[in-house]
């Protein structure tokens, strides 16, 4: 009895995480597992589960529209994430010099990140990129006739992607914080040895900030594969399904047709894709991410 009391006392901190654990089990774990089960069923929200089997997965892999949506999702992610990371690192690198008014720049760059996800900004984006929109008026000043951004399949995906790149502020702030942590004496020593700025960047800066590169890469990938608002509001998946990301198909199947089984199967394939991406990043860490002497 005494030892049981001691056991309780030693583990009393557990009480503080009970709410989280309960919420995790009910709102995350249970839905997560159940959706794997649903993905093997023919499940309409109103008529319930009628069949059990692999039919959803068979349909997905034979339906060219769905496969195309996966392809577009990959294109979107592999376009957006590198653009966003390279651009934010570039700007952070410049801001890391002794820049007058660094706070003003930082704030200006950060505003789009804070508002970017909102519907209001998606509305603004449509106004910018429509045929007679701000972008084409601007190009017109230089005598360039702007393309019809939103009705060209290739350009429409780029427009959606740029909306995310425009929100580079928070990624940039993280890079900037990492750059500030690189010891100045390393650069001084390299300068004395005659290393150029480009060489210093490659040999000193980049290796030392790889943990943040890694963090940004994984979080941005996870986010990019889930993109929904941009294509849903601005292009509605068009033109000719060029911006129909998989998240849009999942939404349509689940909340327009209430075909929960099919939607779950698509969501699970997306999950496996995202997990594989993250896993590749994690496993490859030892090859390129430098964690200092602690590891």
């Amino acid at each position, binding site marked *: 009895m005494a030892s049981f009391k001691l056991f309780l006392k030693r583990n009393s*901190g557990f009480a503080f995480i009970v709410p989280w654990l309960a919420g995790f089990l009910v709102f*995350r774990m249970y839905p997560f597992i159940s959706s794997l089960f649903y993905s093997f069923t023919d499940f309409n929200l109103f008529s319930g589960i009628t069949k059990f089997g692999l039919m959803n997965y068979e349909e997905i892999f034979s339906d060219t529209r769905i496969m195309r949506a996966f392809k577009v999702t990959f294109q979107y992610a592999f376009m957006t994430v590198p653009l966003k990371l390279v651009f934010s690192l570039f*700007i952070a690198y*410049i801001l890391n010099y002794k820049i007058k008014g660094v706070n003003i720049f930082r704030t200006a760059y950060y505003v789009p990140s804070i*508002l970017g996800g909102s*519907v209001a900004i998606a509305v603004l984006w449509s106004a910018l990129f429509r045929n007679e929109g701000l972008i084409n008026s601007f190009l017109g000043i230089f005598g360039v006739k702007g393309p019809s951004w939103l009705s060209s399949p290739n350009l429409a995906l780029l427009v959606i992607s740029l909306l995310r790149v425009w929100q580079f502020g928070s990624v940039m702030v993280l890079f900037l914080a990492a750059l500030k942590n690189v010891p100045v004496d390393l650069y001084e020593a390299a300068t004395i040895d005659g290393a150029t700025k480009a060489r210093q960047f490659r040999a000193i800066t980049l290796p030392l900030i790889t943990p943040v590169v890694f963090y940004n890469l994984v979080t941005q990938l996870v986010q990019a594969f889930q993109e929904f608002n941009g294509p849903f509001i601005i292009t509605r998946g068009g033109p000719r399904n060029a911006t129909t990301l998989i998240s849009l198909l999942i939404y349509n199947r689940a*909340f327009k047709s209430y075909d929960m089984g099919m939607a779950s199967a698509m969501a699970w394939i997306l999950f496996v894709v*995202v*997990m594989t991406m993250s896993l590749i990043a994690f496993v490859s860490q030892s090859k390129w991410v430098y964690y200092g002497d602690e590891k």
Partner: protein
Amino acid sequence: MNYRTAKNIATFLKYFILIAVGFVMVYPLIWMAGATLKSNAEIFANISPFTAKPTFDGFIAAMNDYGGKINIWSSMLNTYKYVLPKVAFTVASCTLTAYGFGRFDFIGKKALFAVLMSTLFLPQVVMNVPQFILYNNFRWIDSPAYLPLIVPALFASDTYFVFMLIQFLRTIPRELDEAAKIDGCTSLQILTKIIAPVLKPAIVSCALFQFMWTSNDFMGPLLYVNTPERYPATIFVRLSMDADVGFAWNRILAVSLISILPSLIVFFMAQRQFIDGIAAGSIKG
């Protein structure tokens, strides 16, 4: 070219790039604000945000309602009906969880912490369908109290904040807890009397981020709010866009601008906390 000129050119280039990028970042927003005061004929006539003949037509039209059921003000009121409780619940539950993980040892802590971290990478897109089914079983869909949007926050469902708070908690010396313990404080008292006050800047950061994210959230209300009277601002903006695209851009932009004004004001009042917050907690974005 001598060293000095080269250096001057480099400095010039740096500022040139920074200002050009800053322009691209902010100009669309300034243009948007200006466009709300233009007539529809003038909005896309030039790229200037200013107009010689300002008109309030856009703002006046922005007050229109839909079927007498919802207008911009009532939709914004709806937004804050779930944003404010969600922020309060998130702060309380995440602080509690962070305290548990950051300050105590218990059986299975390592494994549970790994679970906590893994939820950071769990894509919400995968969760939407089964969570909808779950809330549907609870009869929570379209609930007047916005239950699906609020209740999970009671259980520290946004683990980013737990993670962020744990990071901060690690910087607070344990001696503070020890001293309070000797003085006879219970562990809950240590949290409320000692830890929470020191942790306040981080807690404020969490509250601000949650405020922004929840105010901007579109997917949540899209799935869980179906009655026009209960639509929040994000859904209202999208509704007015669908209704008016092609002819009333000043109205749509005015509606959009009004809907993000509270977020803009909060951001400019607390920009320090936002920028320090992401850097400190390595938060998503």
